[in-house]
């Protein structure tokens, strides 16, 4: 009797999980529709292929477990914001680890030669560091506009703000980045 109950329970669980999975086919469609744009954005934020794969995986895992497998109302907005947050968290962790691991790099930063300033890799890393330190509302706009290359209208829809506000935020973000990059040079 007990064995039968267990087996019925297992069958029920299986059936429910199958039904949920059937309902979650939209995840694959989302992956197909927005995957390329997401990868481009995450790649530009992180610049490391393994990290990109991890952030992408985290994004879709969070999407699959959103409110017990429910489909968010605005899927695109959800995945872009999630991917952005995941990638920035990874970037911050990486920066912190780099700082902790070697003080030599920090001392190396003090000696900025003109050749180093023009070094594209150095510039990219500095900008990524600065972007990671920006306040969230400004950072979201700069990553979506400059790294994901979305229009202001799309950004507005994703972040729930108007296109004009997105423009203002980007302008502010650029001002701050300019100031920080200038300070970085003075160090």
């Amino acid at each position, binding site marked *: 009797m007990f064995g039968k109950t267990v087996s019925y329970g297992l069958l029920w669980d299986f059936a429910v999980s199958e039904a949920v999975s059937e309902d979650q086919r939209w995840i694959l469609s989302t992956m*197909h529709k927005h995957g390329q744009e997401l990868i481009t954005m995450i790649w530009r934020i992180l610049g490391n292929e393994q990290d990109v794969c991890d952030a992408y*995986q985290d994004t*879709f895992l969070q999407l699959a477990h959103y409110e017990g497998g429910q489909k968010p109302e605005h899927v695109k907005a959800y995945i872009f914001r999630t991917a952005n947050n995941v990638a920035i968290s990874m970037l911050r962790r990486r920066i912190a680890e780099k700082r902790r691991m070697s003080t030599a790099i920090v001392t190396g930063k003090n000696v900025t030669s003109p050749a180093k300033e023009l070094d594209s890799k150095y510039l990219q890393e500095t900008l990524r560091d600065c972007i990671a330190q920006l306040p969230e509302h400004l950072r979201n706009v700069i990553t979506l506009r400059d790294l994901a290359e979305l229009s202001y209208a799309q950004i507005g829809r994703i972040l729930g703000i108007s296109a004009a506000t997105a423009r203002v935020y980007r302008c502010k973000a650029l001002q701050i980045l300019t100031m920080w990059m200038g300070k970085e040079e003075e160090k």
Partner: protein
Amino acid sequence: MTGINKNNKCRRIRGWLSEAISRHFGLDANWLQNHITNCQRCQRRLVSYGKVNLAISAIKSQPHKLDLLMCANAQAIGVLKHSLRQAQKAKKLRKIRPEPKLRERFGKYANSAVNVAACITILLLTKIGVFSSMDIFQTQGQKVIKQYYASRVGDDLADEIFPKDTKLSVHPKNSVPLRKTQS
């Protein structure tokens, strides 16, 4: 209707405004350039701004591996539920490669398309020009022939052949023999 007109006007004014503003306050504005040459602080800021732009461009121009999308999809699908992993779409996603956008794909044909459009426009204009010239030529020719008839057979007959209320495009050859038989 008035709303559309108002919108168009508004858009036009916005265009002029942005043009005027960029002329006066853009980076190429003379007063700004003069100031920058004399102000070290602004020079530093401009350099930093240029650096930010350069870094953004460098990040954008950095390509990733072609199979990155494929790898990321495979890794992400790997953590989804069993039935999703086995779905036909999942198999396709594991092999997918980045495809250029429509704009990028057809961007290389843009010049050819513009050239073809220019050729078609020139042809159309030529055709319109030729036809309008033909009309003028025909009307003028008919006037000359009417004058000739008037001088030879008199105004009355010429008016009958080329009545004032009818168009001059009636070929005189068709009407002349008819008049002759009547007379």
